């Protein structure tokens, strides 16, 4: 398992993306999965960057692990910010008329629709969000 720790700020999104996408590319992952993973990383990391540390700066750690049969990537996003379980967020109602559509909740909804597994736990004062995607 590889670990990568950066300050949780949007400017670091490209670094986090490379950390995940490059090994996937090396493994010959399809373009479609690569784009989906890019979206997943952006939505999760941007959420942490925007909301985990409302009073200042903090770090985020991303753990990356691969499985062989079936081929899958497992990513764990860890931060020490305010406790927040994104999976408790109610899914946006995608059947609502335009004027009733809300602006929020779309990011995590996209993540949930895209990954094969997703778990959240709060442990040792850390938010730990794990996703798994078959590829």
């Amino acid at each position, binding site marked *: 398992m590889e670990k990568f720790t950066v300050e949780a700020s*949007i*400017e670091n*999104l490209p670094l986090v993306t490379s950390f995940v996408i490059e090994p996937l590319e090396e493994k010959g992952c399809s373009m*479609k999965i690569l*784009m989906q993973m*890019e*979206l997943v990383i*952006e*939505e999760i990391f*941007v959420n942490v960057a925007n909301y985990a540390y409302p009073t200042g700066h903090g770090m985020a750690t991303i753990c990356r692990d691969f499985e062989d049969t079936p081929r899958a990537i497992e990513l764990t996003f860890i931060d020490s910010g305010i406790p927040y379980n994104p999976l408790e967020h109610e899914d*946006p109602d*995608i*059947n*609502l*008329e*335009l*004027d009733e*559509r809300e*602006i929020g909740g*779309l*990011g995590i*909804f*996209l993540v949930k*629709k*895209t990954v094969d597994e997703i778990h959240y736990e709060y442990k040792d004062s850390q938010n730990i969000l794990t996703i798994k995607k078959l590829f």
Partner: protein
Amino acid sequence: MEIQKELNGTTLVVKIIGRLDASNAQELTKELNASFNGVKDLIFDFSGLKYVASAGLRVLLMAQKRMNKQGSMKIRHVDETVMEVLEMTGFADLMNIEK
């Protein structure tokens, strides 16, 4: 991301090239807010758009709500990957989209 705007009478064509994500969604919001006045038909040309994240979707929603009050909005030439995101979120049904 590159934004190209072309105003013809009351029709504004906005071409977005590259990626529309959390790092630049605000830039597009600003560009649009500076351009909405007097526009009756807003057309997004997505032929050069390869990636959209939720931050970009929020801008589209904002633009659609605004255009509903003053005219119409259409999205043209949508890439397959981008279309998938629009479909997943139900945006494809809310907006006038030509592939």
